[in-house]
């Protein structure tokens, strides 16, 4: 067994034990949903920083963003304005969500929508959007895990009836994930987040110092990038060009990010609204790390890993997603490559756990309790959430094993567009109360239109070129669909108020939001 694998395994086993014993940390009654699924709303500024940092910047991000830079160049850097500009929004809007959720015991965004608008159908739409968007995200975390497993050379598979060949390391990682999520809930995840984020920062620091030094400095790194990829291409005549697509991609992504179920779970687990506001100032540290990680894509270009025979198989299986693992193998000492791979693998495990917990919370609160068994006991509620969280992970595993990775990527692309359509009900709902029927219609219009646009682009891109008065406007489909969604929601609200009138069933009061 190589040194790389040994270091990797040691760190992985340590984290697994940490997760399993996490239930004893600030022990609470884990048969209550808010204790299991929100860590008892107890996390202070530092733990929330680790938890949200680990949650929002996933292993898949750390592999896919540099892969995009590696393959497509400057366009992939939209992740940087996205990851910076989401924080003023977090700072202004989301303490309100925390306060109202705290006052009324909301655990999910859909809980808030049901309370605010008194409309179960709208709450169901928000909950289903969240669950459908987060499932492919879990699957992509497992894909990130597969990339690391392949880079470590652990290609040990067994034949399982019905499933075909199953990678044993992947199955082991899945078992660890399922076990600690079930027993410890968000507490175990938060503990693992601390280890994960420390490993990520160490890896990033080492990478930005060691690798450019070996390649002859940053100047050399950027010289290796083809000039056509180094900047966004200039806008052709009669078009707003790639620059507009870049800006709208950042805008749509930043509006959607904190509405994802796993983000809401992370935010609501904090112990006060002050914790969220402080984190809006300190979380950008992760965005700096992300920007540096994005540049690893260019370092991989400069190192020329794609042409090396030893990495040929990896690139063949995973495409450009293999660029960063290949770079680490090529540049780092063996033992440190083990640390870096552990950072990525644990960085896949931890968000996958929160995503599954968020899925369990959503199903239990907004489907099971609202529609199937309204009188269930708190214990039954927590039990149902644990079972659904397990089912969500099993679904993701099945997806990864049986379907092509491309489907997970396409679904995740759609997921971002769908989540953006919950902006009028959830984010705007913190400020203004449109008619819930109008919001439902707007949501349907936005989801339908966004899906149609990506469909006509054959799932290859999410930037749909609009033609307005002879001008071509390449716009992220989530943003154009959201504009239609907002227009429909607002117009219908005006019409409904003027005609049939809108009964107001709002259980929240202005004082609940401050």
């Amino acid at each position, binding site marked *: 067994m190589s040194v790389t694998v040994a270091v990797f395994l040691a760190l992985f086993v340590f984290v697994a034990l940490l997760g399993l014993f996490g239930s004893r940390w600030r022990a609470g009654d884990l048969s209550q949903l808010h204790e299991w699924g929100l860590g008892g709303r107890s996390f202070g500024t530092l733990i929330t920083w680790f938890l949200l940092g680990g949650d929002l910047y996933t292993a898949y991000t750390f592999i896919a963003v540099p892969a995009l830079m590696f393959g497509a160049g400057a366009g992939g*850097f939209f992740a940087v304005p996205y990851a910076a*500009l989401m924080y003023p929004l977090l700072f202004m809007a989301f303490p309100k969500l925390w306060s109202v959720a705290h006052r009324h015991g909301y655990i999910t965004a859909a809980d808030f929508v049901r309370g*605010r608008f008194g409309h179960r159908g709208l709450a169901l739409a928000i909950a289903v959007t969240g669950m459908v968007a987060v499932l492919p995200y879990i699957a992509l975390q497992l894909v990130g895990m597969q990339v690391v497993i392949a880079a470590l050379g652990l290609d040990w598979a067994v034949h399982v009836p019905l499933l075909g060949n199953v990678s044993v390391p992947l199955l082991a990682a899945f078992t660890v994930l399922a076990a600690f999520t079930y027993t410890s809930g968000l507490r175990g995840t938060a503990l693992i987040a601390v280890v994960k984020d420390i490993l990520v920062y160490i890896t990033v620091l080492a990478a930005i110092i060691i690798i450019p030094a070996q390649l002859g400095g940053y*100047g050399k790194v950027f010289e290796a990038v083809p000039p056509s990829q*180094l900047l966004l291409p200039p806008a052709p005549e009669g078009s707003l060009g790639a620059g507009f697509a870049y*800006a709208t991609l950042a805008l749509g992504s930043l509006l959607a990010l904190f509405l994802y179920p796993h983000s809401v779970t992370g935010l609501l687990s904090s112990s006060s609204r002050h914790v969220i506001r402080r984190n809006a100032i300190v979380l*950008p540290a992760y965005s700096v790390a992300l920007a540096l990680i994005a540049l690893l894509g260019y370092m991989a270009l400069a190192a020329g890993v794609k042409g090396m025979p030893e990495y040929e198989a990896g690139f063949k299986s995973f495409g450009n997603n293999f660029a960063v693992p290949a770079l680490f193998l090529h540049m780092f000492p063996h033992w440190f490559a083990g640390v870096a791979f552990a950072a990525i693998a644990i960085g896949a495990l931890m968000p996958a756990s929160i995503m599954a917990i968020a899925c369990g919370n959503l199903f239990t609160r907004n489907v099971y309790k609202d529609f199937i068994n309204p009188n269930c006991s708190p214990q039954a509620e927590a039990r149902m959430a644990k079972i659904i969280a397990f089912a969500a992970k099993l679904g993701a595993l099945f997806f990864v094993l049986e379907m092509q990775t491309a489907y997970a990527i396409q679904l995740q692309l759609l997921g971002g567009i769908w989540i953006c359509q919950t902006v009028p009900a959830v984010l705007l709902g913190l400020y203004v109360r449109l008619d819930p029927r109008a919001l439902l219609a707007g949501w349907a219009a936005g989801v339908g239109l966004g899906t149609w646009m990506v469909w006509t682009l054959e799932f290859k891109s999410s930037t749909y070129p609009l033609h307005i008065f002879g001008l071509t406007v390449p716009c992220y489909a989530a943003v154009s669909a959201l504009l239609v969604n907002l227009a429909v929601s607002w117009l219908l609200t005006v019409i409904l108020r003027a005609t049939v009138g809108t009964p107001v069933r709002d259980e929240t009061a*202005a004082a609940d939001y401050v």
Partner: protein
Amino acid sequence: MYEDKPPRKFHPVYLILLIPYAAWVWVPFYNRIEPTLFGIPFFYWYQIFGIFLTAACIAPVYFYQEGRGK
């Protein structure tokens, strides 16, 4: 009902939060190579500095709110 809210006074300190958005909205401004910094093209280092700018713009608003005990 939340809609009948009391009139809120707007403090100009909140305008600081618009600065980072203004820094990024006009892509052609930073879609250029020169001036480079340690060999890094403007497009990249400008945006990395933008992250620090964003955090620095949130801080004064935070202290203003804390001072008012919000």
